[in-house]
């Protein structure tokens, strides 16, 4: 499977801060870039996704920025809350719909 490089591995921010998680992909044929949020003991939950025909997508406090020429995309969490503490995975997929996941970022939001 094609790799998706995700950074940082872990992140600690204070409440109200804006954590940013970055991913870089290899295969330019991929056309769907989702982010998943996973709490301990739970399955990953789809958070937000973007296609390469737009450079940014916002849903609530979550924003994806997409840079097609650099083959990078990132997740921004505005006004982060302790309840956002979770592991975040980026992923991508092409026509076969098989998801390739990044390595994950463990986010902790402190009071």
């Amino acid at each position, binding site marked *: *499977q094609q790799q998706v490089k995700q950074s940082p591995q872990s992140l600690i921010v204070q409440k109200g801060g804006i954590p940013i998680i970055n991913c870089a992909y290899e295969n330019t044929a991929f056309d*769907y870039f*989702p982010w*998943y949020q996973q709490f301990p*003991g*739970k*399955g*990953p*939950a*789809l958070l937000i*996704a973007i296609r390469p025909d737009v450079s940014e997508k916002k849903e609530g406090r979550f924003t994806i920025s997409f840079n097609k020429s650099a083959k990078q995309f990132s997740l921004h969490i505005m006004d982060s809350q302790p309840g956002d503490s979770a592991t975040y*995975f980026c992923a991508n*997929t092409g026509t*076969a*719909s*098989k*998801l*390739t*996941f*990044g*390595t*994950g970022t463990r986010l902790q939001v402190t009071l």
Partner: protein
Amino acid sequence: SAVISQKPSRDICQRGTSLTIQCQVDSQVTMMFWYRQQPGQSLTLIATANQGSEATYESGFVIDKFPISRPNLTFSTLTVSNMSPEDSSIYLCSVLAKRIGNEQFFGPGTRLTVL
């Protein structure tokens, strides 16, 4: 989103035995997948479960070790055969519902511990 259930939610098994994990979706879906998530790690695709035909396995996974069935559009099973401690992982099914778009939704997972 699709509602996905998995059984069992967790199990502790002895080396050399087999466990079958069930995945049930509340609506017909076009594609179903099985993933493995080792402790503290990311998710790795095991195979695509094909309705009415043999599953399509990813590199490093074989049918003898992970036989998969998908008898209809809402149900699939994954068997972990001849288990060893290295098979201790979370096993997750996911579904792709074309009516929603390309979104994939995951079940809650089955936490397997092999002693």
